[in-house]
């Protein structure tokens, strides 16, 4: 998402077209380039502790995880105003019990 510069000066972002002049930062997708993102999502576990409150075991509560990856476009910068899901991917991930 482009972060337009307010009145072409300083570190503040401008919102309306009447304020925007320049770009401070851009997290959008540049043309012809591949952007990679890496995520690590923990499975649901519960820790077992001994008498000294020391974690001695991490118990896996469910060895499946429903993964849902969404590429959002948020024209107004939040999910309340006209959000758009560009792409979506789902998969069930498992680990050994």
């Amino acid at each position, binding site marked *: 998402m482009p972060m337009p510069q307010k009145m072409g000066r300083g570190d503040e972002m401008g919102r309306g077209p009447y304020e925007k002049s320049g770009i401070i930062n851009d997290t959008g997708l540049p043309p012809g380039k591949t952007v*990679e993102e890496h995520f690590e999502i923990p499975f649901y576990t519960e820790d077992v502790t001994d008498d000294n409150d020391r974690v001695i075991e991490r118990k896996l509560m469910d060895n499946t995880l429903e993964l849902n990856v969404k590429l959002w476009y948020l024209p107004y910068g939040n999910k309340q105003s006209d959000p758009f899901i560009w792409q979506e991917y789902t998969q069930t991930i498992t680990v050994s019990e």
Partner: protein
Amino acid sequence: MKKTKNTLMAFLACIAAFVLIATSAFAAGVGKDGTIVAKKGKATTIAELVAMYDSTGCIDCHEDTHDEWANSAHARSVYGTGRTAATMKTALENGVLSWAYSGAESPEDVEVEHLMGCAKCHLPQLADATDAVAKEFIADIYALMDAYRNDDEEKFDDMKDTLLSLNINCLVCHNRMAITHKWTDGYPQDGTVYGSSDGEHEDEAYPHTKVSPIMSESIFCGQCHGLGPNFELDNPTQCATAYGSYLWAYTAEGGTETCQECHMEKSGLGHDMQSYRSKVMSDAAVDFEVEAYGAKWRDGRLVTPKAIVKVKMTNRTGHAIPDG
């Protein structure tokens, strides 16, 4: 002495005559007097402005093209989904009316120049209207917003229809905006539709067709779809930046396709030019690959199970996504 005086006067008269001839023959903008606005005169009401660029005569022979266009954002460039008109009101209040040196303190003070930050692209033909039209335009947007707040459906629909009558239609693109380099290619002339061929045109008001040298070039779209700040304005605005990105991040990296090739031809959408809200465009725009698997991280004797997720996104368009 008298002879010298007469000679001097004759010399000055010659210079004056030369300046006059030079001015009329070589004034900047040869053919500028043949444009639609030059022939019809500046519009003094919204109705006159709509009539000046009335394209309804095109429908008889180009119905399919018209129907494609009617579904595009170009057909509602001022009203949008309602948000565009609302943003123009915000731009006026938070911008023009709040700035110390704009010369406008209330909506009644607004002139055409105050609105060109938005109108440059959303309604370029506003430049062919008097300040009375700028005031009427702003009054209509206020009336629309008031009617919405007061649940006055009739007034709201009336104002909505007025704002929808102002758009980027056939004549705006195929005449007014059809030539960028006017000193090279000439000014777009009243009575002529600019496209892909020279010849006769079966239309009483527009009996000629002429080639627009840029109609299939990206620069044509770039007139509105933006380089960044519009420095030609006394207070620059910035809305679209797609054309800047196209030039410096796409063609500079070897890209060769034009806006029209992707948005009109390959998409199959023709004059229904769309962006991400059209599935055919959003699907073609981004390759989205996800690789995911489970793995167990071990820290001492503690095992932490995780999903490892790798996402690859490749922008296949000719500009950054998103734009703005």
